[in-house]
């Protein structure tokens, strides 16, 4: 075969082979196209949609809290938050991020890890409440930081003069358990940890909205997807209207400052709390937004326990402030009537000698309350336990709201202690206790404890002629659609209280303010105050000062219970605070500034932190 022919033959075959090659390459590519676009369409089409549409959570504004005049107590102010979507985040940008946010690199790493563990796809808060400079830094460099975003949120602001630390409570980030338990929370969300913020959390938090936005490959938002048709608007938190009176609250707080104790002022007819203060307290503002860690630690480790709401949670012997209740119980049980007299020779002898403060002579119940005679009530308690048993007394005391929960809408409330036989059995052992432990109870000493809130509730029962009110801070919850929920149930009549008996006790309490221990400070101009002081001995240092009271005497509008721990006599420590509050409440000003100044300057004995 000639060479030329062979070559031509070869070239011809080569062209055919090339054509075959071209054909097979195109068959493969066609097949691949069909495979991808027809058979895998259902897999990749949703991916491409997810790629370009991002679901964003829109956090609602938390509900506002108002006082009884409609003044804002708790509001919201803008706060700048840096968020992260871990899936799109580029770990190598951590140094840049740390530099821009003026944060430690390790800190950012830890936060990123936390967000990753929570969810790879969801947007989490990385840094909360950053200052505006950091916020604008991030904004400018967003394109260099894939997966990082920013948003403006609300943080709690406290525009009123009063601190109201415990009543309002503080917010903190949700825990893992809370997130798991409720669909409402995402990582970094705030939840009410105490006070109203906690009790009304479900109302205040509102509902989260959802926004669908188109994003580009860098995760940058390009505006709403399909005109926002699929978006769900966030539901604003419900506003809460309280019965608090900020002016009154402010006075209570100022006068309590530097002391340890609690004050509760309420409307004895409705139970609406007008003022509720506890010291030492803390600054809610510093716990809002980006947590001030040093402050948080100092608040938590303070031996005076600022987070502890003494107004509702302390349990202290009420001392002589129990005497009005004792009188009512005695009269109801028929041990005494208004005219029954007891001779006080400076104490009561029964097994041992129970001391009275002085020699009162022959007195009836009204005088016994006016002069705060111990002998009268030692004797009466002796009669009660001998003739009716301790547990009858316990139950009747419970009817005043002592030794039981008031179910106020605040956190941390305690039951207090009004002992019955089983309590003593538990505490001291069966048959290991006796009359000596019980007679003391007649003057509010011994194994007995109450909070200022409970004493305010108890004095309200006397003030409003026998109705047990449910104390509450919130008056109504105003929903967006106009629906209003009234929080408080109607007062309940304590059926065994007789009008005549109540009148006698009320008279005694009025006299205690005009003639007795309250006359120096609690007896104010133009308005008739009725009250009872208490000076409770306690094994942990100086006496606690108590004062329970209400005014006006004939048609009460306000009842106040004051406890100053380790402050000495109730008449000189607790009563002036109530007196000042009454002056403000009824006259709108402080009529005796020297008393006000005296209380500001007053320094109680050092508080013993081992006992709250």
């Amino acid at each position, binding site marked *: 075969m000639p*060479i*030329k022919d062979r*070559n031509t033959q*070869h*070239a*011809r075959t*080569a*062209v055919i*082979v*090339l*054509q075959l*090659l*071209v054909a097979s*390459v*195109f068959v*493969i*590519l*066609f097949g*691949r*196209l*069909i495979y*991808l*676009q*027809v058979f*895998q*369409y259902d*897999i*990749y*089409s949703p*991916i*491409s*949609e997810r*790629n*370009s549409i991002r679901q964003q959570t829109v956090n609602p504004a938390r509900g506002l809290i108002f006082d009884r005049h409609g003044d804002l107590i708790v509001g919201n102010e803008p706060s700048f938050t840096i968020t992260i979507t871990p*899936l*799109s985040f*580029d770990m190598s940008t951590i140094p840049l991020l740390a530099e821009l946010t003026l944060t430690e690199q390790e800190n950012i790493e830890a936060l990123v890890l936390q967000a990753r563990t929570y969810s790879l796809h969801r947007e989490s808060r990385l840094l909360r409440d950053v200052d505006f400079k950091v916020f604008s830094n991030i904004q400018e460099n967003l394109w260099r930081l894939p997966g990082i975003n920013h948003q403006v949120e609300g943080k709690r602001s406290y525009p009123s003069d009063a601190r109201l630390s415990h009543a309002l409570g503080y917010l903190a980030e949700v825990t893992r358990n809370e997130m798991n338990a409720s669909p409402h929370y995402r990582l970094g969300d705030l939840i009410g940890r105490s006070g109203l913020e906690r009790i009304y959390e479900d109302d205040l938090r509102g509902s989260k909205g959802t926004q669908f936005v*188109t*994003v*580009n*490959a*860098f995760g940058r938002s*390009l505006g709403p997807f399909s005109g926002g048709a699929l978006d769900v608007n966030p539901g604003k938190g419900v506003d809460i209207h309280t019965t608090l009176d900020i002016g009154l609250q402010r006075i209570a707080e100022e006068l309590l400052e530097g002391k340890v104790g609690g004050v509760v002022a309420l409307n004895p007819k409705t139970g609406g709390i007008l003022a509720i203060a506890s010291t030492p307290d803390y600054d809610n503002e510093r716990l809002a937004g980006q947590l001030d860690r040093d402050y948080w630690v100092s608040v938590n480790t303070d031996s005076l326990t600022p987070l502890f709401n003494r107004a509702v949670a302390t349990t202290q012997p009420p001392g002589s402030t129990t005497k009005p209740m004792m009188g009512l119980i005695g009269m109801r049980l028929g041990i005494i009537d208004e005219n029954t007299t007891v001779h006080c020779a400076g104490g009561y002898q029964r097994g041992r000698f129970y001391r009275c403060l002085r020699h009162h002579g022959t007195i009836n119940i009204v005088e016994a309350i006016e002069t705060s005679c111990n002998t009268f009530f030692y004797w009466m308690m002796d009669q009660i336990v001998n003739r009716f048993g301790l547990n009858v007394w316990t139950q009747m005391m419970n009817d005043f709201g002592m030794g039981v929960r008031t179910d106020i809408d605040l956190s941390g409330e305690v039951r207090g202690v009004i002992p019955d036989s089983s309590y003593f059995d538990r505490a001291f052992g069966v048959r290991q206790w006796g009359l000596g432990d019980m007679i003391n109870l007649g003057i509010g000493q011994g194994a007995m404890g109450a909070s200022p809130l409970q004493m305010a509730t108890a004095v309200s029962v006397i003030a409003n002629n026998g109705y047990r009110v449910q104390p509450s801070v919130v008056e109504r919850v105003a929903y967006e659609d106009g629906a209003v929920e009234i929080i408080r149930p109607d007062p309940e009549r304590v059926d065994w209280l007789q009008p005549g008996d109540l009148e006698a006790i009320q008279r005694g309490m009025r006299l205690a303010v005009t003639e007795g221990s309250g006359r120096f400070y609690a007896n104010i101009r133009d308005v008739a105050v009725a009250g009872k002081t208490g000076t409770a001995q306690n094994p942990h240092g100086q006496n606690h000062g108590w004062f329970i009271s209400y005014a006006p005497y004939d048609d009460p509008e306000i009842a106040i219970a004051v406890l100053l721990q380790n402050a000495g006599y109730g008449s000189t420590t607790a009563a002036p605070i109530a007196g000042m509050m009454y002056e403000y409440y009824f006259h709108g000003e402080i009529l005796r500034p020297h008393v006000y100044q005296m209380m500001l300057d007053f320094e109680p004995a050092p508080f013993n932190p081992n006992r709250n």
Partner: protein
Amino acid sequence: MKWYTRFDWTLFLSWLLLSLIGLVAIYSATQGPQHQDTFIAGNFFRQVIHLGAGLVVIIVMQFISPRTYVQLTWLLYGLCLFIALLTVFFGIEVGGEKNWLNVFGFRLQISEFMKIATIMALASYLSNQRNLSAQDFKTVAVIGFIIALPVAFITLHGDTGTSLVYIALIPFILFWAGMSYGVSLLMVAPAIFAYLTVVNIYAAAASVVIITFAIFMLEKRPGLTLVGFVVGVVMVIGVNMALTDVLQPHQRARVEAFVNPQVDPQGAGWNVIQAKTAISSGGLYGKGFMQGTQTQLRFLPEQQTDFIYCVISEEFGFVGAGVVLLLFLVMLSRLLFIAATHKHPYARILMIGVASVFLIHVMVNLGMATALLPVIGIPLPLISYGGSSFLSFSIMIGLCLNFYFYERDFSIYAS
């Protein structure tokens, strides 16, 4: 005969249609609201100019005798090499590649034009041999040398993707020049072995056996068969070892991303996943012009150049992507048909070379876009944005049109 009956309309129209489709795709890839103010926003307008220039060049080229081109071959080859050398020293560096030369404000990528010069040089050399045969060593060596020179320069530019095109050209030319089937198969076998080893080691092992057997059947030479088998085994083991031990982490990541993109979806796997998503989500009819979310929201990397096919697939679906494939098929078939029938050997080799370069580009670019091949950055002929590459491919078509147009006159003066 009227001039228009001698003109190859099939080739010209497929060139024009592909270029126009490219324009539409580039418009979509660069003119969306997301691309405003970016550096690619002006690409569409520039590509319109490229297309206009390409059209003018092709028309002007038709008025020049083919003999002029044949005579200019070596001059062009030398000139291109010289410019390539200049680029090595004065090139503009973009993304680690230094393959642009600034010529009077235009960025010239000589590696693209070099393809034409190389094909012409090969055609010139082979058509001047009295006995075309790749059986003797000298022919093989010269062909290798003609191709190796540009490869060397382009590799110095850092553009490995393009040098790969030149290397892939070698077996095509040698095969056509008369290299035996068995040896030709042996030449392409390593690439097949390497590819299959990355994809599936068992398929690679099977291919070694099959290809070795095929070589034996074609040549009946035990020595060559043994060489084939040894090459196969060495490739499979070597590539496998390279994957695990030799490659740098980022190189390995790229290979792994191709095999299993889900491992690192935000990193090396990103391109593969986004390209696949774009093509797949286009479905049968596509999302519509300017409606492709992958394209418009810039999920696609290099969407106006290397991944332009994804734009077409996403917005025009299987219908649009299929039309593009068909047009390429028509173009290549036509080129090969002329190559088989042309009377002048220079023209034949030139057309084989042009067809080969087109085929390599289409195969690699579409293979990459459809995730059949690892990401290698070479443009899709006539469709990808880029002045040098568009003009270079247009000139190739222009040459082929010219040689076809003057086939009769041309043949008289030559052998």
